[in-house]
């Protein structure tokens, strides 16, 4: 066994109402790439927060880094030991420039009380050169795409003398190409003796990059395994204790009036000449790379991004959708891609977030909110989506990342849409929950809702949709009937186009 970089013994963490971690022993060797997996709320982020000293473990834990034991382990200790974390929420400063965000740790670490802007730019340029990317230095982080923001966060971690790099779901918003680039960086860092801890719900990625994988379930450690001994299925089983099976979604050839029809819909710089029909009971998949116009199209249907020409018909009637309100009144629901910012009021309770879209339906004769109705509605949503929360009045920000996403879904499902557009419905959601969300999508479809699922994971659309359209550079370039194609064929089509 190689030298240990980090060794933790008997680490527990209790929050009010939840045992987030339960006597975990955890080790990382020097220079290894270690994967950490587990369902939503299994304690991955909490473990990371303890390693980075942001949260303190409960009584009885022992933490050693490079053989040095700590009594009161604090964030400054982890920084001095060269531990850098890229958090799930990225922890960037939206109001500062790219250069400043990247060089910030260096700025704080430097002894000088003053800032040299030349140095700030130098540091940022060097970090970007290291992974071969270019983002304008004086752009505000707020104005960047999520993918670029993720890259900025990665660059920031690379500016210091990092020894352990921790990535908490770093690839959720990256394209395949960018993921490959990131993996090259991690491998390159490894050759420089830098250790990496990698958390992700994309199990194939974990198995591809990690040498060993540690599995958490309900705050307990299931074990650490060499990744060559693992497969997707086995990992899933270890995480959930259950076997997840896919069965394709098939429906009879739909006929009659489509729920939604789009004719020659175009908008300059967004999408062009889009034609398709969506029938009740269908789950229509739209896939394609990031930046292919998928999200723009979805937003056009939801009144957030008006098309310039073409028609939208709902049940055969031509309509115009000028605003989100109009879209909602036409029975369209939309789960946005960037849920973290577009979907939730973080300080508010889980309950309030769930009912925010349907308050008008909970009003009783006295024009007041009917409390029992509200409670029922909240409880049934929480159960349906198995949202793990200590209490319905817990603030959303205390939930794990994946559970926050379920709250967004709950909120939109509650509106009973006739047409439901979901942009990346399972980004950052664990396998078990993924299948439960797929189950929910199916049940909605069976009840006659027309559903559009947008995803860049071909396997996701393949396993859940009866029809799949591939978008590329703003156009629909192919359409497949799931029962008459294979995952590989679709994947090849996408790769060929790009």
């Amino acid at each position, binding site marked *: 066994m190689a030298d240990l970089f980090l060794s933790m013994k008997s680490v527990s963490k209790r929050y009010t109402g939840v045992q987030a971690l339960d006597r975990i022993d955890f080790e990382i060797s020097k220079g290894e790439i270690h994967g950490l997996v587990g369902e939503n709320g299994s304690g991955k982020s909490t473990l990371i927060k303890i390693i980075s000293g942001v949260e303190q473990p409960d009584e009885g834990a022992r933490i050693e880094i490079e053989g040095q034991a700590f009594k009161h382990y604090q964030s400054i200790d982890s920084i001095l030991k060269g531990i850098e974390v890229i958090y799930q929420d990225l*922890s960037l400063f*939206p*109001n500062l420039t790219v250069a*400043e965000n990247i060089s910030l740790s260096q700025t704080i670490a430097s002894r000088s009380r*003053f800032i040299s802007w030349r140095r700030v730019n130098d540091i940022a340029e060097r970090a970007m050169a290291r992974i071969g990317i270019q983002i304008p230095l004086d752009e505000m982080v707020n*104005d960047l795409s999520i993918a670029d923001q993720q890259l900025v966060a990665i660059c920031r971690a690379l500016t210091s003398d990092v020894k352990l790099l921790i990535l908490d779901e770093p690839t959720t918003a990256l394209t395949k190409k960018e993921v490959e680039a990131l993996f090259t960086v991690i491998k390159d860092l490894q050759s420089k003796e830098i250790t990496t801890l990698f958390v992700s719900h994309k199990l194939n990625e974990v198995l591809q990059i990690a040498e060993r994988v540690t599995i958490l379930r309900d705050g307990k450690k299931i074990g650490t395994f060499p990744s060559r001994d693992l497969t997707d299925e086995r990992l899933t089983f270890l995480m959930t204790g259950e076997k997840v099976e896919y069965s394709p979604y098939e429906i009879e050839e739909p006929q009659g009036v489509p729920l939604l029809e789009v004719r020659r819909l175009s908008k300059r710089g*967004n999408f062009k000449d889009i034609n398709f029909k969506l029938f009740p009971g269908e789950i229509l998949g739209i896939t394609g790379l990031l930046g292919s116009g998928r999200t723009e199209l979805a937003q056009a249907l939801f009144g957030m991004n008006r098309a310039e020409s073409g028609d939208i018909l709902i049940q055969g009637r031509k309509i115009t959708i000028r605003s989100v309100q109009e879209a909602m009144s036409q029975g369209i629901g939309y789960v946005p891609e960037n849920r973290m910012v577009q979907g939730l009021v973080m300080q508010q309770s889980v309950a309030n977030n769930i009912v925010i879209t349907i308050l008008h339906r909970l009003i009783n004769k006295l024009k007041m909110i009917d409390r029992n109705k509200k409670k029922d509605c909240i409880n049934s949503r929480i159960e349906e989506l198995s949202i793990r929360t200590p209490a319905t009045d817990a603030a959303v920000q205390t939930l794990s990342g994946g559970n926050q996403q379920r709250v967004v879904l709950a909120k939109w499902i509650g509106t009973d849409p006739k047409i439901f557009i979901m942009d990346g419905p399972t980004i950052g959601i664990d396998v078990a929950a993924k299948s439960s969300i797929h189950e929910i999508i199916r049940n909605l479809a069976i009840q006659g809702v027309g559903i559009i699922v947008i995803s860049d994971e071909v396997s996701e659309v393949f396993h859940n949709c009866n029809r799949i359209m591939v978008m590329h550079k*703003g*156009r629909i370039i192919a359409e497949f009937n799931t029962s008459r194609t294979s995952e590989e064929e679709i994947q090849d089509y996408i790769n060929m186009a790009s």
Partner: protein
Amino acid sequence: MKNLLKHHETYVLLVIIIFSAIITVINPRFLTLENFFDVVKSYSFIGILAVGVTFVLISGGIDISFTAVATVAQYVMAVMIIRYGGNIFTAFLLAAAVGISLGLINATLIYFFNIPTIITTIATLNIYYGILIVISGGKWIYALPGWFRAFADIRLFTLCTDEGIKYGLSIITSIWILVVIIAWVILRYTKLGRGIYAMGGSMNAARRAGFNIFRTQMFVYSFTGLMAGLAGLVQALLVQTVAPNSIVGKELDVIAAVVLGGASLAGGVGTLFGTILGVTLIAIMSNGMTLMRVSSFWYNVFIGLIIILSVAFSAYQRRTKAKRAIAVEVE
């Protein structure tokens, strides 16, 4: 050029130029050096307060109590120099010390009790001001020492109009200028200053990145206190009387000026240049209306309109920016 259009400041400057042109056409006296120096001097009080408010707004908080702090600092200073004598430096030290101490009280309350800053500072405004009124009985002070009067009349350089009236750069104005320069250096070129922006942008991220939130917050509120103390002194120099009820009530004027200059109530955004422009715009409006003989009641209406326009314009800009951002290369 494109870069210029990105900045809020450019538009405020544009509005200032347009207004100035209109006022000058109606009353040419507006665009004289004499009027300029006069306006700048009389707005150094609001200007210094605005510097402090800029700091708190950037840090993501708000301070309402600064007018009460200014009043208390001014009053304590006046009483002390009348009773015990001293010189202009003791006057400065007194006002600064009172300002900083009251600011530190604000910061401590905010940090330890974790109460929203607006509530904390509304409370302390009432407490500071209330105690002052109780102790002073609301009495005005006129009998300021001769040296205090003399200091206010100092000019760094003097010019003369055709009619022989002297004017120039007052020492009071230069206090404002000095304050702005120091504040600008702090915000732009120190770790502390960048920490204030970082904290305003994302408190959580700032904590994780290793900024000392407690220290930064202490600094921000004591700095605002210091600015309030100095402003109190400057106001006493300007009007040569100390009236306990002359400053409290001006909070919103100052905050409005700062917000006009581009600072955001949501925190993380704002520049000193913007704040100077915001103060300038308000100053021009008020001065211009006097010169154009418009009733001063209209002044408030206009300020309100400008604020609404400014906010609407920023929102519009954000929208168009968002629209441009979602572009796809369509073939």
